[in-house]
């Protein structure tokens, strides 16, 4: 059962410990948020400066993917335990979606 957390036997200590953990985690969240903003800025600047199309397209998509991974693993807690089934199904969805996008951008060319 998932609601049996490891306990020290003393609820107060546990709560203190948990609060601290939560706080620490919140710090990580803020860090990843700043990173996300940073990535967004790079993407917008890259486009604003108008580098070559062949460079920009893959580059900003890469930035988007990184950013989304931050969202998923930090904001949506996928890095936590108990997310095996969610990640299995999310990645399956991503796979199906990627195949779809690939097909639509290759074999509908006219």
């Amino acid at each position, binding site marked *: 059962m998932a609601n049996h957390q490891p306990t020290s036997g003393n609820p107060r200590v546990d709560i203190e410990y948990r609060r601290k953990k939560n706080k620490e985690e919140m710090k990580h969240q803020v860090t990843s948020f700043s990173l996300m903003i940073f990535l967004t800025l790079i993407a917008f600047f890259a486009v604003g400066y108008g580098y070559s199309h062949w460079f920009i397209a893959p580059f900003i998509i890469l930035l988007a993917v990184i950013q989304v991974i931050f969202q998923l693993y930090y904001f949506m807690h996928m890095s936590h335990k108990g997310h095996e089934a969610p990640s299995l199904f999310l990645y*399956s969805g991503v796979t*199906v979606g990627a*195949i779809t996008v690939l*097909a*639509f951008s*290759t*074999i509908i060319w006219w």
Partner: protein
Amino acid sequence: MSTLAQKKGFGATLWDYLTTVDHKKIAILYLIAGGFFFLVGGLEAMVIRIQLAIPNNDFVSAGFYNEVLTMHGTTMIFLAAMPLVFAFMNAVMPLQIGARDVAFPFVNALGFWLFFFGGVFLNMSWFLGGAPDAGWTSYASLALESPTNGIDFYALGLQISGAGTLMGGINFLVTIINMRAPGMTYMRMPMFTWSTFVTSALILFAFPPLTVGLFLMIFDRMFGSNFFDASAGGNTIIWEHLFWIFGHPEVYILILPAFGIFSEIFAIFSRKRLFGYSSMVFATVLIGFLGFMVWAHHMFTTGLGPIANAIFAVATMAIGVPTGIKIFNWLFTMWGGSITFTTPMLYAIAFIPSFVMGGVTGIMVASAAADYQFHDTYFVVAHFHYVIVGGVVFAILAGTHLYWPKMFGTMLNEFLGKITFWLFLIGFHLTFFIQHFLGVWGMPRRIFTFLPDQGFETSNMVSTIGAFFMAVAVIVMLINVIMTSIKNERVGNDPWGDGRTLEWSIPSPPPFYNFKQLPLVRGLDAYWIEKMDGKKGMTPAEPLGDIHMPNSSFVPVVISFGLFVAAFGAVGIGDKEAYGIPVLVIGFLITFGSMFFRSVKDDHGFHIHKEDLMNDDDKGGKA
């Protein structure tokens, strides 16, 4: 709660079913609704076959034929076959994993009612100007040209019932992942549960592309967008892709549960555990996975180019391997077994050669260059009826006989059952075998009639005669159902005598809470293990305690009805009718209003108390 119900009046029973959230009753609803639509689709098939019996026939007109053809395919796939497999999933899967219900009983009911209202909406088209007539695939250029509102009904109806199916899929997945009884590890799950699992995953990923495709179709037809209008930059091939990205997994959504049912049957009636269980699991997952990589084999002649065609051809052929693994595992389950030829087992046995014939023609059409000849001919019609009727329909008929006692507490008559079987088997091969030849002799599919002197006359006549055999078989089965229900001889937990899985360890039908105490599962074929150890039933995994149950609710019907109303509004908007927008708004108000009501009103369910359970005789399936 009207749960430990005695005899009730008709009104009360009806209300009970309208508000039920019990997976066993929802299963019965799916069975009845799916069965009804099967008769409708079958009737449409008979119209097709009568029209094609002789050349230049004028039994129906050309336009009407196209409507019948489209509705036959659509009804059979979406409103008959899928709900019927859902019926068995609902009835059996929670019992097989030792759960008291599905994860979201309310959503389960909602799923059913969405399917039902979607199906009714689709069929309303018959009375409101004309049914859809662009084939069940509804290819965009033709669908946009279609003059009646039929296509609108198709797109909106499937949208509604598709939403229901998607909910059902998620529900089953969560149930299987979260609600297995103690000891029921993944690799101890019965094969039918496994196939429910993979099927549900396919539903989860296959339906969204259909949803999108249908939205684009709705927007183009009703709201003036240009997705499929080449003159405004649109592209009809998008529809083809979206449809088949859904459509191909869909056929595995149909066949995998069928495989599951047969796996149970082979084991039960050979008195042997499923041969190669783990490779069966693996093969099922692999089929599900590959199912998403092959959709373009329906589009070999679209002009995607040789690279795409070659890739998809080879990927498609690969599916033959895991399917073959399953076929041989079934054969070797029987090998060395002790086979009894009950009605379900007869279907299972007949399924093997029938399905293999359909499967191998699938591989033949997968050969892209050869498919340029097969595509859109009766060869393809023969292929898919061999896999669908020889696989899915056989499984549904087998499952009906197998699980009837579990669902209704009484056995279908075996003698009539066998008559149905033989008539259906003969009729099936008579109807569809000859169609392979019609196809390669040059008969295209979806033609409302054919001219004489092309060599099609005799074979079409034979095919039609076969269809009549099937119709008689279905009628015999209906008689069987009626007679059995009137006689109503009650049966015990394990009426077939050789049940292996948990559902056979509890009464038929099970009490509404299924398991008084959750059972402890000690291995694959949990009940069989206990029986072999000389025990009467399962060992409980928990002390007798209160059981938490969900409340019944009428809200699912209301939510679904709201969308039903809104869909009429959408059709009206497409026709530029004044009533369109108000009706749409009213419909959405009903739906969202009732959803709002549902989410704002707390519903904690109720508890059955320990004391009541103890009084409840021993009918509560001691674990």
